[in-house]
């Protein structure tokens, strides 16, 4: 039982590690890394569920009767592309955030948002107070 | 002109609405703008009177406009009660417009175009309410009325006006959304229709508890009827200019409230069902409490408009009681009271406005001796008061008579006592005003004083103390000032409504016939 679902266990562990990093770490880059691990675990899940013991690649030939399901593999190619796009966009955002806030630590950024801003109108203090409430 | 009655019916709603466009277009020329309003009033009265004659001839007049949701339509139908309401509202709109011309100009109010504009929309909504053929249509116009009168209440644009407007809109919208809408949807669900139908729309075997709860929801939901505890909006709305208080908060808005209650009682529940519902008695006592409490509060008000507002709350309770009594005399009394109270109360409000414009006084304690300066106004005030109290020779006599009869028929002795007591209280808070105006140095006559309860006598003492200080200055002004009545258009308006109070007493026949026809469907 335990070994039979070996691949699933790995997926779950990776998934939890990824999610934990996203939630627990304040560094924006690390969050993206966590997100990537989380996504990768799902890719592994898809790939492994298509694998059949002793199966080969799906080649249309009379010599091979047992082959792995190609569809999930194809799907996950798409998902990997999506994952890369997400990571790239996330990292690009982090660069912009670094430029704007001069920091990539979540706490730092939130603290800066709470400070009254020069270019905002007078009640920005109240505004940011509300924001922190939202975030909290 | 040869218009069909159906077309006329629609025009009563469309004409005031179209008038708004003309009012906006002529906004920069006050004379023309007021001309437009008056023309619209006259056309409206012409239409309503024609419809009235049509109704008397036994025509059934109904119009279907639009099906909003499957089974729920905007449609109109004329029956005697709505006719009564429309007649009063359209006639008093004309009078009030005359009054407003004098008042608004001599008071130099700002944004007069917006004022006349909202006024016209409000009247259009009132016509919609009066002629609506189903609860759904009524609800739509009910909300239009609330929203269109909001700018009128907050007309002054001051902090106080804003606060008043907030209470006004807050109470009227919340009650209508939370209770009334819930009641309407539930009724639709239980009865399967919302068409007004003499004798009610609920089937015989309807669950009495459910119907009872619905009745409570309706009475609470119709916040415009100002039944306690949802009456606070009416005094709050008194920040509005006096013509608004006069027409809308003595006639159109509050009467739309009690009119809706009457409609619901007679045409949704039907008086037979109403009489057996478990919650009717509770609501009767609630309305009774509203009558009494409001009278007591009225006595303690020094601001004349606030006193009149609480007096209105109390009088609205009468109408609600009449409707809930579920007898023919109750319904007749209520219907007549809509008319008689309208004439009486609008006269009083006109007078209050006239005093404000001419003498810049709004406190009752400052009004001693003003009878010398404004004799006509104060005589009108006296007659208006008599009508509210219900003493001959004024119209109020009849409606109070039928309401009393209703309580006696149903053996509601407690309510009868409440009504009697309240009439006495009316005397206590209304009559001293004209009395002191004419006889500033006399204290009220002993016999009358005994009739009052302790609270009010304290107040009379207080006012008489004030009076001793006031006699001197007012005496001085008297020497140089002669008569200083309100502007002529306003004075004419006061005269007409006062006359109305008297005419209804002498010639109540048409009113009585309409009121009795309510329960027979005009046949």
């Amino acid at each position, binding site marked *: 039982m335990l070994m039979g679902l070996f691949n699933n266990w790995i997926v779950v562990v990776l998934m939890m590690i990824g999610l934990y990093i996203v939630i627990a770490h304040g560094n924006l880059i690390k969050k993206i890394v966590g997100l990537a691990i989380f996504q990768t675990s799902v890719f592994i899940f898809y790939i492994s569920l298509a694998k059949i013991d002793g199966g080969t690649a799906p080649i249309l030939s009379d010599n091979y009767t047992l082959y792995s399901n190609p569809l*999930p593999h194809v799907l996950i190619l798409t998902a990997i592309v999506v994952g890369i796009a997400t990571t790239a966009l996330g990292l690009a955002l982090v660069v912009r955030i670094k430029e704007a806030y001069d920091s990539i630590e979540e706490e730092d950024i939130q603290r800066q948002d709470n400070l009254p801003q020069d270019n905002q109108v007078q009640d920005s203090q109240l*505004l940011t107070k509300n924001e922190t409430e*939202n975030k909290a | 002109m040869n218009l069909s009655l159906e077309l006329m019916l629609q025009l009563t709603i469309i004409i005031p609405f179209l008038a708004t466009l003309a009012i906006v277009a002529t906004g920069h020329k006050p004379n023309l703008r007021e001309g437009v309003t008056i023309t619209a009033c006259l056309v409206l009265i012409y239409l309503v009177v024609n419809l009235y004659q049509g109704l008397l001839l036994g025509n059934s007049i109904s119009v279907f406009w639009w099906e909003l949701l499957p089974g729920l339509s905007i449609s109109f139908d004329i029956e005697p009660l709505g006719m009564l309401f429309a007649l009063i509202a359209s006639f008093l709109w004309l009078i009030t417009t005359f009054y407003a011309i004098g008042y608004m100009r001599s008071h130099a109010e700002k944004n007069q175009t917006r004022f006349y504009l909202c006024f016209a929309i409000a009247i259009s909504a009132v016509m919609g309410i009066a002629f609506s053929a189903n609860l759904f249509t009524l609800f739509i116009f009910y909300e239009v009325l609330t929203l269109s009168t909001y700018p009128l209440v907050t007309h002054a644009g001051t902090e106080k006006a804003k606060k008043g407007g907030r209470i006004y809109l807050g109470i009227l919208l919340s009650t209508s959304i939370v209770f009334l809408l819930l009641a309407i949807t539930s009724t639709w669900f239980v009865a399967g229709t919302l068409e007004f139908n003499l004798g009610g729309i609920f089937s015989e075997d309807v669950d009495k508890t459910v119907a009872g709860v619905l009745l409570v929801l309706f009475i609470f939901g119709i916040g415009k009827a100002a039944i306690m505890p949802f009456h606070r909006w009416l005094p709050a709305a008194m920040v509005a200019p006096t013509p608004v208080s006069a027409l809308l908060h003595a006639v159109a808005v509050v009467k739309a409230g009690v009119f809706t209650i009457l409609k619901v009682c007679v045409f949704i529940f039907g008086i037979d069902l109403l009489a057996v519902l478990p919650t009717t008695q509770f609501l009767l006592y609630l309305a009774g409490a509203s009558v009494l409490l409001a009278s007591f509060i009225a006595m303690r008000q020094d601001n004349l408009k606030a006193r009149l507002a609480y007096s209105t709350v109390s009088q609205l309770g009468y109408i609600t009681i009449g409707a809930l009594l579920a007898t023919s005399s109750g319904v007749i009394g209520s219907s007549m009271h809509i008319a008689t109270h309208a004439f009486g109360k609008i006269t009083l409000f006109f007078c209050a406005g006239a005093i404000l414009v001419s003498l810049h006084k709004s406190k009752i304690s400052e009004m001693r001796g003003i009878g010398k300066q404004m004799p006509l106004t104060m005589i009108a005030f006296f007659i208006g008061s008599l009508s509210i109290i219900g003493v001959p020779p004024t119209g109020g006599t009849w409606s109070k008579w039928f309401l009393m009869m209703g309580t006696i028929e149903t053996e509601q002795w407690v309510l009868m006592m409440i009504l009697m007591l309240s009439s006495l209280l009316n005397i206590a808070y209304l009559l001293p005003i004209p009395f002191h105006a004419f006889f500033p140095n006399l204290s009220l006559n002993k016999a009358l004083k005994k009739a009052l309860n302790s609270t009010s006598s304290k107040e009379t003492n207080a006012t008489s103390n004030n009076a001793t200080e006031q006699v001197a200055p007012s005496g001085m002004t008297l020497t140089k000032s002669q008569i200083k009545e309100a502007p002529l258009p306003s004075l004419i308006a006061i005269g007409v409504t006062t006359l109305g109070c008297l005419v209804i007493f002498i010639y109540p026949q048409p009113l009585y016939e309409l009121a009795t026809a309510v329960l027979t469907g005009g046949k």
Partner: protein
Amino acid sequence: MIAHLPVLQVIVPLMAAPICLLLKRAQLVWLFSLITSGLAFLISILLLQQVMATGVISYELGGWQAPWGIEYRIDKLNAFLLLIISAISTIVLFAAQTSIEKEIPKSKHTLFYVLYLLSLTGMLGIVATGDAFNVFVFLEISSLSAYALIALGKDRRALWAAYQYLIMGTIGATFILIGIGLMYQMTGTLNMVDLSQRLPEVAQTRTVFAAFGFVIVGVCLKLALFPLHLWLPNSYAYAPSIVTAFFAATATKVAVYLLIRFTFSVFGVSFSFTTIPLQTLFMALGLVGIFVASTAAIYQKNIKLLFAYSSIAQIGYMIVGFSMATVTGLTATLLHMFNHALMKSAIFLALAAIVYRLGNVQLSSFHGLGRQMPLTMAAIVIGGLSLIGVPLTVGFVSKWYLLMAIIEQGWWPVAVLILLGSLLAVIYVWRIVEVAYFKEPLANQTPVKEAPLFFLIPIWILIIANIYFGIDTRLSVQVAQSAAMTLFGVTP
């Protein structure tokens, strides 16, 4: 041509996006995007007509047969959604060029339209497709472009909001992906119709339960259901105004559509609502969401933030209707999707116009705005009345159906709560009205003019639609009702 409409609906904006890059000049790109979006709108009208007349349209992408190839399946539900999305997109785009002039640096104008069209493509794709995995792909297309669009906001907090949205959105999308994977594991198919036929056989397995859980949580993240709504307020508040107007009206609707599609079509009513206590859960979350978000809205000083919270509350109404699992309830939800799109796009466009003139939407800058920008403020007031649910506006129609659905079930306390919820809307709308109409303009405030026509025309088109569909309810009610009936398998 007509036969290819379902795919054209998605392909047209998709192809138009890269062409924008070639056109370069911002004005030209704007015109081109507007035409593209208008074309999509036209296609959606044709599709809806066709669906109402002949029933479901099934389109096999590339000619591959249905369970194996990707199928685009247009029924009444998604034809209705396609119409909402493309219509709002077109109307909003009309004001786009004027609005972004002040909010987005000139060099990024072309890119803005590219992203906008991609986002539109994504949403149309999610709705049009009948393939579960395809949903994920389009979801990511629309989300990725949405993150970038939000990050274009003037305020630096837009970046932070976009980043948060990216993290939450990706987690949500990945959850959906896991759910789809689990379903595939059990049934070996990705086609929704096929799934709905095969799932019942294995319904009692833990894998299907897990799949359901993952999909629902993922979708709820996307639709900002309380308590998964934390990404929404800041994203809406700091995104460029035009983006907010577009997303507020469409993005969450698409997520609600997914929720309906998965629970009703894929898993089936009996599984979603009988086997799993979705009803109680969603009812509770919806109600709490209405109250928490409406209360939060009352305390906001930034009006965009205020209406963002109001959007979360409105989603609560849709969820309550949905949780009833009756035809009337679902009709109410669908109607509210349509109606809410109309009100919110109108309100946010009006706010965009105010940003254009004032540079911000702080409540304190609204002083005296009722006189300075009468038409724009009137639009906000009417939109607000519609939010409250005053008769003769669209808000009333959906509220009426929602109430009917609740009363049908006999849940009186819920009915009262719903109505109390709309009182909260009265409070937050009226706070704006009082400031705009009763406060004199501040001394240091430079007087502003009425918004330019490029704003007024789309705003008032939407406002008139708000009133028109509040009076003539035939189209919206008929479509919503028959879509709901189809989902329940009742023949209308």
